[in-house]
């Protein structure tokens, strides 16, 4: 988009705001910090001041304030005027990066994200060396920094209390073949794994594949898929995000998949909305982005609405509450479907928390760059989840899983954190085992 069009689009979005302040009721950052610069209305005022020349984009305080937002889109749910605040935020951050360049560390990391071989090598090296830096926490299937590294890492949010899922020595896409055929396949879909499933939660990815297999769905896991670009876009690096979007679309062409399936709210939103926004004016990729946008489903919606999944028979004895991932609920509008799946599992008791769609405080790297605020938001979530009496907190997004893993432990709770798809997979597994036993008895 030319600069003038971008300016006009930004101004039109800013003009929609009535400054009524309804966003204050739901903004997780404002709930903790209580300062008006924390909430959408305040940041809109700041953006207006930047445009009028009262504030400058190379002022570090301005940069810090505009990055003090999880882009969780909660404000957009409460906004009576329909201000698309995420677009304002991403545009302001893109302008900051265009004006000042990316800080070297971000530049190095984002560069690696768009070079799969480099990223893959770095993640595997990290996984191999993790024992030096992290110690295992057998209670949680998680790791936390060993003391000398905890000291170094403290400013970046890696103190010795932080729990983190261990990076996989064998990422998901190395473990599974590119095509998983199903006998009498009802459909053929492509699984966009996303980085978190690939490098941190490969078992969850395998659960997702098992559920699709149970429902006679043939799955392609394209080897050439890359990061969805959300992490770089929220840091203002639209150019890299655009490259990633094109590469991902290329990876899907020729798969003959009817749909793209995601198990991560951020990846799903990227396919659903972000790629089209990024590639809107692109003569080649614009139309492909729109096509795949309309053919991407979160796995829960695919199961409940497209496929009409087979109701599982295996009992899973657990009291479960569900946390709505912001990108899954507020961007993809998926919130009914995971609950429908959980409620279909025999033995499972579902207890709703009081504010299931309050942000968990992750915001991707926000949890590392804004430790105090993120941690306070996470505390509210951990307390709300614990008040339900649940033994398991289910969610639909691996980034939330990482945050919930850390915050549950940090605030003295003991709930297991699981993707809802793993609970469904477990029910199918128990069903198979039960049938196996019965077969033996016969």
């Amino acid at each position: 988009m030319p600069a003038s069009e971008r300016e006009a689009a930004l101004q039109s979005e800013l003009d929609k705001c009535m400054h009524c302040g309804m966003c204050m009721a739901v903004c997780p950052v404002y709930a903790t910090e209580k300062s008006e610069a924390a909430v959408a209305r305040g940041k809109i005022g700041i953006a207006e001041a930047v445009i009028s020349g009262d504030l400058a984009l190379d002022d570090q305080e301005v940069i810090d304030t505009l990055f003090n937002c999880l882009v969780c889109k909660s404000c957009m749910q409460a906004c009576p005027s329909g201000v698309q605040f995420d677009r304002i935020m991403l545009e302001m951050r893109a302008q900051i990066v265009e004006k000042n360049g990316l800080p070297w560390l971000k530049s190095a990391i984002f560069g690696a994200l768009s070079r799969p071989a480099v990223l893959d090598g770095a993640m595997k090296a990290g996984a191999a060396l993790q024992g030096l830096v992290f110690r295992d926490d057998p209670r949680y299937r998680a790791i936390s920094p060993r003391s000398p590294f905890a000291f170094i890492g403290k400013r970046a949010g890696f103190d010795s209390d932080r729990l983190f899922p261990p990076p996989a020595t064998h990422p998901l896409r190395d473990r599974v073949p590119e095509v998983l055929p199903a006998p009498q396949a009802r459909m053929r879909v492509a699984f966009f794994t996303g980085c978190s499933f690939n490098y941190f939660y490969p078992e969850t990815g395998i659960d997702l594949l098992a559920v699709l297999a149970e429902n006679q769905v043939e799955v392609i896991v394209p080897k050439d898929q890359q990061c969805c670009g959300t992490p770089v876009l929220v840091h203002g690096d639209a150019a890299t995000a655009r490259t990633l979007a094109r590469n991902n679309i290329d990876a899907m062409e020729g798969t003959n998949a009817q749909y793209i399936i995601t198990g991560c709210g951020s990846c799903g939103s990227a396919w659903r909305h972000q790629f089209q926004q990024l590639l809107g004016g692109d003569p080649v990729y614009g139309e492909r982005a729109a096509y795949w946008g309309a053919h991407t489903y979160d796995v829960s919606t695919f199961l409940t609405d497209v496929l009409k999944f087979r109701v599982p028979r295996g009992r899973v004895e657990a009291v479960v509450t569900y946390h709505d991932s912001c990108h899954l609920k507020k961007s993809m509008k998926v919130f009914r479907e995971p609950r429908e799946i959980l409620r279909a599992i025999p033995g499972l008791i579902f207890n709703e928390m009081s504010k299931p769609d309050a942000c968990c405080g992750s915001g991707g790297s926000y949890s590392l760059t804004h430790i105090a605020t993120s941690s306070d938001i996470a505390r509210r979530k951990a307390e709300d989840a614990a008040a339900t009496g649940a033994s398991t907190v289910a969610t639909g997004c691996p980034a939330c899983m990482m945050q919930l893993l850390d915050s549950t432990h940090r605030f003295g709770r003991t709930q297991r954190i699981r993707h809802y798809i793993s609970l469904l997979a477990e029910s199918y597994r128990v069903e198979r085992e039960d049938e196996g036993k019965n077969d033996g008895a016969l």
Partner: protein
Amino acid sequence: MSDTSLAGRLAAIVGAGHVLTHKVDLVAYSYDATADVPRQIPDAVVMPANTDEICKIVNLARARGIPIYPRGAGTNLSGGAIPLHRGIVLSFQRMNRILEVDAENLTATVQPGVVIQELNNAAAPHGLIYPPDPGTVNTATMGGSVAENSGGLRGLKYGVTKHYVMGMEVVLANGDKVRFGGKTVKNVTAYDFSSLFVGSEGTLGIITKITVKLIPAPKFRRTMLATYQTIEDAGNTVAGIIRAQVIPATLEILDRKTIETVEAYAHVGLPTGAEALLLIEVDGMAEAVVLAEAEAVIKTVAENRGVLRLAKSDAERDQLWAARRAALPALASLNNTVVLEDATVPRSRITEMLVACAAIGRKYNLVLGTFGHAGDGNLHPTILADKNDADEMSRVHQAVEEIFETALRFGGTLSGEHGIGIAKMKFLGSEIGESGLNLMRSIKDALDPTHLLNPGKLVPDREAVHAGI
């Protein structure tokens, strides 16, 4: 400890983490929810934790001749929270505790930063409610709504904020802390200071603690929506309902422009071509009474040729309310500036006022829709304009002036619930006269002789006596 700057002295009182002085923070306090009023950034924002800190802040500000602007959530609609002459914004965001819900005495005592809905959440387990419900219940604070005497959708039956305030703690401009009123229904000790400070818009003292009355939550309700081919039929329905001795909790009206805009914006199934719409809700403690009231309403609607929809479930109630809830956002979507007035007339003049507002919109060639609280005469003529079009904005100002004149001619008032603030200050004399203005000034000068507290609002200056200007 030798930092004698304003920020340094404020930090010594409340702690450095609770003083904001960087421009990027201050910009976010340069406005409230009011359109078409000046913006101004303060010198500092301070967030005290208790009344003693507020006394110290007042003493510091007085010694330095710097004005103080108390602020809750900044949802004000008359410019009341804008730091017009710079100085200190005193934010109540940290004083947000509900100190007590006393179910036996039907009272609650709160700090000013408590959000109205949070008080209702705390009262709900006791089966109690705090009835004043401005559109901002989820964000606005108790302190702000008491200082502005907020109204809302239930004013007709349940009254407004002033009917619920029983006592207060206030810090005066001289630094004194005073307490008055309390938990007793009857209290004639001293002047009725609660009446003085409710609606004082932060110009007489800084409210630091509030005791309010709670009431039992109504157990039953019936919600109805009626559409009309003429405004007169809708107006006669309002009169007819009152004549039938039914006092609905909610009795809201939307005019033709608002109905068209809402339907185009939200597609809630309103008939096109309707001249007026009434949203009516009756409630109470006994089902038989509520049903009898609903019957009376249905009969009155039919007598006046209204087309009625009755909600049979909570989901249907939500559908009926959708039209009313969408009124402001739908109108606001039409342009970049929303001038939202709250001129109010006696209930019997509602029809004339609606007709007059529409005529004023046509006269000045403006997009103007009116909706509001027909039951208590409080209307919201809403003008949508382009702030970058000087000619149009000038016509907006003329139209607003004519709306005020019309309301006064009908025996009404400039403001039913948004307050005078900056936005309506220059019109004040036309309602209360020179003697009224002098009374206002006498009270202001007696309590705040150097105009330390929220200067430039509500009370027009006789001469420039502002502190620190």
